[in-house]
């Protein structure tokens, strides 16, 4: 299952894009039960495509909460348009998921 959940909603000429990503977002300063630092593991870049054209790009670090949630507002958009969200983290892992506007 993809780590990215996307919900879209079209209303009054705008499309709300909500996304919830499953990711630990460790900033490297937390310690585990044995007092060892947990290595940093966080998303560094996330981007949103509307019909294969990039509309949002975010840079972030470990200061975003675990399992990050974002929501954006797209001008216009039509029911059936494709929305794709992708991320890449500092370990080089990446994931992508897409949905159609409802």
């Amino acid at each position, binding site marked *: 299952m993809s780590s990215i959940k996307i919900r879209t909603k079209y209303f009054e000429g705008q499309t709300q894009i909500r996304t919830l990503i499953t990711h630990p977002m460790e900033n490297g*300063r937390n310690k585990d039960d044995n007092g060892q630092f947990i290595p940093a593991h966080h998303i560094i870049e996330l981007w949103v495509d509307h019909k294969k054209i990039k509309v949002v790009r975010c840079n972030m670090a470990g*200061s975003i909460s675990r399992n990050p949630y974002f929501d954006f507002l*797209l001008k216009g958009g039509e029911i059936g348009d494709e929305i794709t969200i992708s991320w890449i983290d500092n370990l080089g892992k990446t994931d992508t998921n897409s949905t159609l506007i409802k």
Partner: protein
Amino acid sequence: MFKSRRKFIKSIVSLTAYSLTMASGLLHSSLVHAQWLNESFKATNYEQLLQHLFVDVEFIDSRKIKFQRLPRVAENGAVVPIKITSSLENVSKISLLVEKNPHPLIAEFYFSAKMEPSVTARFKMAEASAVIVIIEADGKFYRKSKYVKVTVGGCGG
């Protein structure tokens, strides 16, 4: 300043590449930009970070930036919600900073013209501090800040 012609050309080329990547914020970040970003997110001093991110920029304190959902007292520093909206036109970038976090830069959002200037996120706060949002629109920089108290810090330690 430059000892040889080769060195001079090299520096000019890298400078141009640098400014090009900066100008094309929406494009996929290049290696130079990635390095620059890494430095920004690793910075620990708020004042120095501002100098690094916004070179010779005057900030306009604006009421056209609105915060929603950002609490006055955050009960859990690990999850502080914020919704940033704005009535400014042509917003290209929104930066979110927390002055007293170990790493003050939280996130940067680059928007294309197709997007409304609105974003919701959840971030971490280590201690009570000012939360600062800087919006770039039409080449001008608008700023708004709000002081948030934190009862339990969320940045480890």
